[in-house]
């Protein structure tokens, strides 16, 4: 039952993608959307079936591996196409197919009238398949295949509007930066093949302690995996692609660049935790980079003017929290935040998509304003999503972020440093997210709003769009109650069998104390944001240049990699390609001509000359023969 569920869950979106791709024009436009949505819903149903079947087993027996066939076989080493269903994979499967089907359904409304709807739905179904392959993989090889395929589908979907040069540039940027991570990961896998002789999760993790005896080896492996995770999850220093990825359609941003794909890095760390635990420095680096990311991106989000980019930076910041938690060993907390984040961040993106859709594609927040009265339901959804993001009780983010904060502060000096960063991040989160809310929804109606939303026009989009937003709103409200510190923790105990947390558990009293703290901080942030932005006057403080420049990361990469590469290419072009390769073509031509002219000169037509030449040749040969003999 579990195996069937796993395969149906995996293959349903692939089937839909193939059907849409092969169906082509024979398929009605709407049918592509229905097919993709249906397949993800089927996928979700299969995941639920697998969950129920798994819950039927006792806690220690909740791992099922099913093998389809062997992929690679050598005498010492084999890789199978096998799937692993365990609590961790199930959580990811449910999030991907559940949130995924809501977002794909939303796309039916959002993409209506787009000239290439079918291509979009084929891509997005293919993405769902790739992501499910990633999380259901039972060995690192299949995981890497899924890892690469999600990168591919992300590339295709970011560049979906291929007539926009900026979209193409963003797609290439995402792909290239992800390729860096993929390469690092592949190198780590080569090391594992060399030293562990297997890539199966069970086999590798069983040897983790043996591998750990070689400090260099385990650090390199963990570092390779970490670089892969950083690139996929858009963490410093490989984060620059995610804001640009907002060039894609908004549902894509919601599904790939908020709810699922970018959290794959967190999944990888949690999945490979036995390796990371043998390399504590690498794991602490992950936590530190998470903290750095959540601060830096939170600060950059303060000055962004594009509504989607604010949410994108917020995504990076929230994934920073997950990295922080995974880095100190609080896997349950990391995964819990991953799940609630998927709910409220998808909600934020989809609500932003409703706004963008209503305003005819405008994404600049400075041109918005006063939408509260025109789009009351979207406003409520956005308010709840923002509240959950900031961590206001009783919304989802409150519980999950609290768990991370409380675990951080209970874990030594390093943990306290991380905690300080995290609590500063909470303040930033409150500031930028309520800035967004105030800029878009409060104040007077702007020119753009008056123009694109005439009175009495239904503003909030078709039902295909509002229904998923409503469902996600409910999830953002209730999702956090899966786990309440000190009261119940079914989520952590469900995951405990796969990824036992080694972080020190905070005491219940401390947890509640921290909850109070982390309630005061965001309220302060909201108050500041209200004071500055709610009136929507233009007297908002000027943005510091460093933040507008996104802390110079893009510039640094431009200087460090792009320009040297381009100038090297130019140099090679002028020093090697032009003189050697291009000129050699001409040279070959002229020298052939010259040779031909010389040969033609011999060909005088005088028979006696020919004879003389023959005689001379023969004489020389005879002489040579006589001399050399």
């Amino acid at each position, binding site marked *: 039952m579990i195996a069937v569920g796993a395969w149906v869950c995996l293959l349903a979106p692939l089937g839909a993608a193939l059907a849409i791709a092969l169906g082509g024009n024979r398929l009605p436009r709407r049918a592509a959307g229905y097919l993709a949505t249906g397949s993800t819903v089927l996928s979700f149903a299969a995941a639920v079936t697998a969950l129920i079947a798994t819950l039927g087993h006792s806690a220690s027996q909740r791992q099922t591996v099913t093998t389809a066939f062997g992929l690679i076989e050598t005498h010492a080493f084999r890789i199978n196409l096998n799937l692993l269903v365990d609590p961790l994979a199930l959580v990811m499967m449910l999030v991907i197919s559940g949130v995924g089907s809501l977002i794909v359904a939303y796309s039916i409304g959002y993409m209506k009238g787009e000239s290439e709807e079918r291509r979009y739905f084929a891509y997005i179904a293919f993405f769902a398949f790739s992501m499910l392959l990633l999380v259901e993989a039972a060995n690192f090889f299949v995981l890497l295949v899924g890892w690469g395929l999600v990168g591919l589908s992300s590339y295709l979907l970011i560049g979906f509007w291929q007539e926009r040069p900026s979209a193409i540039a963003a797609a290439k940027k995402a792909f290239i930066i992800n390729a860096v991570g993929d390469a690092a990961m592949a190198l780590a896998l080569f090391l594992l093949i060399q030293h562990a002789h297997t890539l199966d999760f069970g086999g590798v993790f069983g040897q983790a302690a043996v591998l750990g005896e070689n400090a260099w080896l385990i650090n390199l492996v963990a570092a390779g995996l970490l670089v892969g995770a950083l690139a996929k999850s858009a963490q410093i220093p490989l984060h620059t692609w995610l804001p640009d990825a907002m060039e894609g359609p908004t549902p894509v941003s919601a599904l790939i660049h908020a709810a699922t794909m970018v959290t794959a890095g967190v999944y990888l760390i949690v999945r490979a935790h036995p390796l990371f635990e043998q390399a504590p420095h690498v794991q602490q680096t992950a936590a530190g980079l998470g903290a750095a990311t959540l601060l830096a991106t939170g600060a950059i989000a303060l000055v962004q003017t594009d509504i989607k980019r604010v949410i994108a930076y917020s995504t990076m910041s929230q994934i920073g929290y997950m990295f922080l938690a995974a880095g100190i060993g609080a896997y349950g907390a990391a995964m819990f935040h991953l799940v609630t984040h998927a709910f409220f961040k998808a909600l934020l993106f989809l609500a932003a998509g409703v706004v963008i859709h209503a305003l005819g594609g405008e994404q600049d927040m400075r041109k918005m304003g006063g939408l509260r009265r025109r789009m009351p339901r979207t406003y409520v959804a956005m308010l709840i999503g923002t509240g959950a993001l900031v961590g206001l009780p009783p919304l989802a983010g409150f519980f999950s972020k609290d768990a991370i904060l409380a675990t951080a502060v209970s874990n030594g000096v390093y943990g306290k440093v991380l905690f300080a960063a995290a609590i500063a991040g909470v303040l930033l989160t409150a500031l930028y997210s309520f800035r967004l809310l105030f800029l878009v929804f409060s104040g007077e109606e702007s020119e753009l709003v008056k123009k694109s939303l005439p009175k009495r026009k239904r503003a909030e989009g078709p039902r295909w769009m509002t229904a998923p937003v409503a469902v996600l709103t409910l999830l953002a409200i209730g999702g956090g109650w899966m786990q309440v510190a000190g009261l119940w923790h079914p989520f952590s105990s469900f995951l405990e069998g796969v990824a036992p947390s080694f972080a020190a558990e905070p005491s219940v009293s401390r947890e509640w104390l921290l909850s109070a703290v982390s309630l005061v901080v965001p309220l302060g942030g909201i108050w500041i944001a209200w004071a500055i932005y709610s009136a929507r006057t233009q007297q908002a403080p000027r943005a510091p240049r460093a933040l507008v420049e996104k802390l110079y990361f893009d510039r640094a990469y431009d200087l460090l990699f792009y320009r040297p590469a381009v100038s090297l290419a130019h140099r090679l072009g002028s020093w090697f390609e032009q003189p050697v390769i291009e000129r050699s073509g001409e040279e070959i031509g002229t020298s052939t001509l010259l040779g031909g002219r010389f040969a033609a000169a011999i060909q*005088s*037509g*005088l*028979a*006696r000359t020919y*004879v*003389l030449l023959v*005689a001379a040749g023969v004489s020389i040969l005879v002489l040579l023969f006589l001399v050399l003999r």
Partner: protein
Amino acid sequence: MLGPAIAWYLVVGSAIFAIGAAGVMLRRNPLIMLLSLELMLNGANLVLIAFARRHGSLDGQVFALAVMAVAAAEVVVGLGLVVAMARRKIEIDVDLLSRLRK
């Protein structure tokens, strides 16, 4: 071993060949050139036959017969060309015939 030593045959053969070669190289009349060519071939034939006798093998003699057959064919073609040229009142001088086309 009957007759003179093989060296004599070789000397005579080489001499005939050299006379022929000089004729081919120096004369301009195609008729004379053909005759000289014949001399060269027969000089070579003489050497072939001498060696055949010396080694008691018939291979050289057979080969000499083949050379004669080829020489006959060649003379037919060559003389035919010379006659055709004479009929068309083309001057019979190989140095003037250095082009395949006009």
